[in-house]
């Protein structure tokens, strides 16, 4: 008997692991029958999770924290025992703006592009036409990553520019009509704007934070408890799907699966670009190789580090202009569930970190860290401005942004 599990998702390349776990039979091997609920807004993905239309969802990580803390609606505790991936987003600007602030054709230096953008943003503000930048949701890593970069580049995100919400599939339209001058969005929607000649990719979010947390697999906390064996079986299936996903021999097959109308419904060539870390940055150009553009598997990428949840909390406080609250910080930290991840994978031979929290952004080079058995290597995980986040001093980190 297989156990049914329904998973909600938005059509994005990083919904790949649950989809491939189903398509390649890894879920079935673990005794699960997955069905999918495709939606086109995060609000609906979340509503269906909260009202039981789905058992689990592909969700932007900050939204899981915001929902738990009751931002914008009554609080409902969510639990994320698995990170679906790190990074995989990019910053795409209109060709005119890109020509002014970057060197189209290559991924820029975030410091240099940021400085040039700051100048342009000031000029546009003085002319009474502030730059408009799109993100997919207030509580998205896209918003936090974009704001982190802007602020560190001397641009005040709430004053010097206007940050607006745009649904990913309409980013290219919004750039074409001039509604926005740029956007931070996931794939394949940057590449779709490039293919239409209305956008130029200037940065990957992995250049802002080399190992930035992106989507999570979210459950309602009581549902995770009630369906713990199924959730753990799903985690094992997702790890197998991840190992299949990162193998270059499978890239074309997987791109074709993800491209289907019931999943991402997009051009398989664009999806292949994202999953092989080879992006076309300017219409008609040769693809550029940027290793770890998407990061779905190696170095325990799926491990829900408590420090990642806490970093997201610091950004929520920062941009929602809240006061630091130890209770909220603790509630946010509890959303990420390394205990469930470990319990699911103990005995499978998979590498499990020894700690559950780490200083984010502290590794400038590949470093061996303790694993539950032996050690494992974690690569560079720095922020572009050289800061690091010590989860033992959340309040101090928030204050350091002024």
């Amino acid at each position: 008997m297989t156990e049914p599990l329904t998973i909600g998702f938005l059509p994005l390349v990083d919904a790949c692991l649950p989809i491939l776990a189903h398509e390649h039979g890894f879920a079935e091997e673990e005794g699960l029958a997955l069905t999918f609920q495709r939606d086109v807004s995060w609000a609906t993905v979340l509503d269906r999770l909260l009202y039981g239309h789905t058992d689990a969802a592909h969700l932007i990580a900050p939204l899981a924290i915001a929902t738990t803390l009751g931002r914008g609606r009554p609080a409902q505790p969510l639990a994320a025992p698995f990170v679906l991936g790190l990074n995989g987003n990019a910053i795409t600007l209109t060709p005119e703006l890109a020509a002014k602030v970057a060197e189209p054709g290559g991924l820029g230096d975030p410091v240099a592009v940021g400085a040039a953008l700051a100048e342009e943003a000031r000029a546009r503000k003085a002319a009474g036409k502030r730059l408009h930048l799109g993100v997919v949701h207030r509580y998205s890593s896209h918003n936090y990553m974009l704001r982190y970069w802007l602020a560190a580049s001397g641009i005040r995100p709430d004053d010097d520019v206007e940050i607006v919400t745009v649904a990913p599939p309409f980013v290219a339209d919004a750039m074409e009509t001039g509604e926005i001058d740029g956007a931070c969005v996931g794939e394949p929607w940057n590449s779709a704007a490039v293919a239409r000649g209305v956008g130029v990719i200037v940065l990957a979010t992995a250049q802002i934070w080399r190992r930035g947390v992106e989507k999570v697999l979210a459950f309602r906390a009581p549902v995770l408890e009630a369906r713990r064996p199924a959730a753990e079986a799903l985690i094992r299936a997702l790890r197998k799907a991840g190992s299949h996903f990162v193998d270059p021999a499978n890239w074309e097959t997987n791109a074709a699966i993800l491209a289907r109308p019931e999943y991402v419904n997009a051009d398989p060539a664009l999806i292949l670009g994202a999953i092989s870390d080879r992006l076309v940055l300017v219409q008609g150009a040769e693809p550029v190789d940027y290793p770890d553009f998407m990061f779905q598997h190696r170095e325990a990428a799926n491990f829900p580090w408590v420090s990642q949840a806490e970093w997201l909390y610091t950004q929520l406080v920062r941009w929602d202009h809240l006061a630091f609250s130890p209770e909220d910080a603790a509630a946010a930290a509890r959303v990420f569930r390394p205990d469930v991840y470990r319990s699911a994978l103990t005995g499978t031979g998979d590498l499990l970190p020894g700690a559950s929290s780490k200083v984010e952004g502290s590794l400038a080079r590949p470093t061996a860290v303790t694993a539950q058995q032996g050690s494992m290597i974690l690569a560079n995980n720095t922020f572009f401005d050289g800061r690091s986040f010590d989860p033992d001093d959340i309040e101090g980190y928030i204050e350091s942004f002024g």
Partner: protein
Amino acid sequence: MRIAIVDESATRATIIEEGLAQIPDCEIFVLTERHGLLSRIEEIGPDIVLIDLGNPSRDVLEEYFAVSRVLARPIAMFVDESDDDAIAASIDAGVSAYVVDGLAAHRIRPLLDLAIKRFHAFARLQSDLAEAKGKLAERETIDKAKRILMQGKGVSEPEAYAELRRKAMSSNRRIAEIAEAVVTAHELMGGGE
């Protein structure tokens, strides 16, 4: 009370509008265009906004409401916890509602109930339509199977139909299924059109 219905399906929006028109003292605005949605909402200044769950503009609208909370007429998601059943019912029906803060629950409930009924009515209409389309497709398949039999065996149209019907009865299947099998077999044998 000013009600805005945001729906890219003009048919469904009309069905909901008709339903809500029964409520006294209501002014209803239907918004089917994605472009310029927020400026239209701002012009209208609705007390209630209804939007279908499949609408890609939901996140855009929620962000607008989040920002509007600091303005004069804050709009909240309709999630007064005491009304959780009503919200669950509306999510099941495929609609979400946003209400200006402070609007009395006794004014919201009947409206939401009506909207839910109308959403269900529309869903039924769609499944009826799908069924009708399916029937039409079946008829075409049966016609095709009849032509294959007429050409292949030199029988008349009534004879061809009678043959399909006999086979269906003896194998306890529907005529459409037998016709489908005939057409598929014919295509496999290289007789496709």
